[in-house]
């Protein structure tokens, strides 16, 4: 699959998890694309952890406001009904269970719902930023990522990188399919018809339970 198609496939499928009226935080990178695919008949509100709700699209060129950026330091806009606040309120929203969902990428995710996405010891130590708070506090945690790291499985029996949070992931969405974290392990509920069950099993280090009701991966 083409790299951009992969990303769009994932973002489109994540968008279908959103419900009308949801308050959602989208992580930097791939998760940001989800905003482009929200179904027309629903409206969601995006939170930006640097201090506002009602995050809108990037401004037109020349319309940038140096005082209005997102958590990745990119110029953005605010939609009518949005509001600004300080970091304490921002994380009160995140940690207080007021986010209906957070969508994040992962370095590793495992069958117990553990997530590792903030450091590789000795190599890359960017820091957790707001990720630990988001994963711990949001009502639903959706991991949205390319299925493997250039062929190396990222969905594991057990994460071996330092965790972002233990047992908090609800759903994993990749270009290959949709996996639910259950008490029994990872349940494959949807499969991208571009791939076979065997393909996804090979690309996954964790045991995959194949749903009796396995469906074709939706994108709309």
């Amino acid at each position, binding site marked *: 699959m083409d790299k951009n198609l992969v990303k769009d496939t994932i973002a489109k499928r994540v968008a279908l998890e959103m419900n009308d009226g949801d308050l959602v935080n989208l992580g930097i990178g791939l998760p940001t694309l989800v905003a482009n695919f929200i179904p027309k008949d629903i409206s969601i509100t995006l939170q930006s952890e640097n201090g506002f709700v009602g995050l809108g699209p990037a401004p037109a060129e020349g319309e940038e406001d140096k005082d209005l950026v997102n958590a990745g330091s990119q110029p953005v806009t605010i939609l009518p009904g949005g509001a600004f606040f300080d970091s304490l309120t921002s994380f009160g929203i995140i940690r207080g269970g007021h986010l209906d969902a957070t969508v994040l990428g992962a370095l590793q995710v495992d069958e117990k719902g553990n997530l590792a996405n903030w450091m590789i010891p000795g190599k890359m130590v*960017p820091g*957790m930023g707001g990720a630990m708070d988001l994963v711990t506090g949001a009502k639903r945690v959706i991991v949205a990522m390319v299925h493997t790291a250039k062929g190396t499985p990222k969905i594991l029996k057990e994460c071996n990188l330092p*965790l972002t949070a233990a047992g908090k992931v609800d759903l994993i969405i990749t270009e290959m399919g949709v996996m639910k974290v259950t008490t029994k392990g990872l349940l494959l509920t949807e499969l991208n018809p571009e791939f076979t069950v065997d393909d996804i099993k090979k690309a996954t280090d964790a045991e995959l339970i194949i749903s009796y009701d396995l469906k074709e991966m939706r994108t709309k």
Partner: protein
Amino acid sequence: MNKVIDIEKFTNKIKDGMTIMIGGFLGNGTPETLIDAIVEKGVKNLTIIANDTAFVDKGIGKLIVNKQVKKVITSHIGTNKETGRQLNAGELDVVLVPQGTLAEQVRAGGAGLGGILTPTGLGTIVEENKQKIVVDGKEYLLETPIRADVALIAASKVDKSGNAYHTKSTRNFNPLMATAADLVVVEAEKVVEIGEIDPDVVMTLGIFVDFVVRGENNG
């Protein structure tokens, strides 16, 4: 009370080894003029408390690049390669804290709390060496207060008594940090007369502020 001072008077207050909190989020809403003055003075062995270390040429990043910092307590260093390099080279002590926990710790320092209980960090390396406390059958980490010698605050507008207004996404840690340091300095391009900011919408309270400095290049 008029709290406006020259930058020199501010610079005189900053000494080697101080612990300094700095507002801003990746350089947005950061007191660049105050930081530049510290860079120029060249004091060493600072401990910096901030959301992130911004970029090599912006905000807190400039203090790191200038090797004035011995320790940084922060949630994110990924946008400043020099922070990572100094960390790996053993030249800089970096304490990484979840962003929400950092906000709560600064607030606890300013609001007289002995600490707060949070589930953030449970089951991760963040829980190392911390008390765990059970409330209603659920486990939490005890996170303790943080205070500093000095807090540097950026504002969009400040009156001469230190009441400040932070527009849009520039607010972030600024109002919080103003509560949690022994010396609080606010920088803004716009310094207005006392009473010009509507008392309903003051965001950083002048009662927390010691000095006001006219800023020149607010980030």
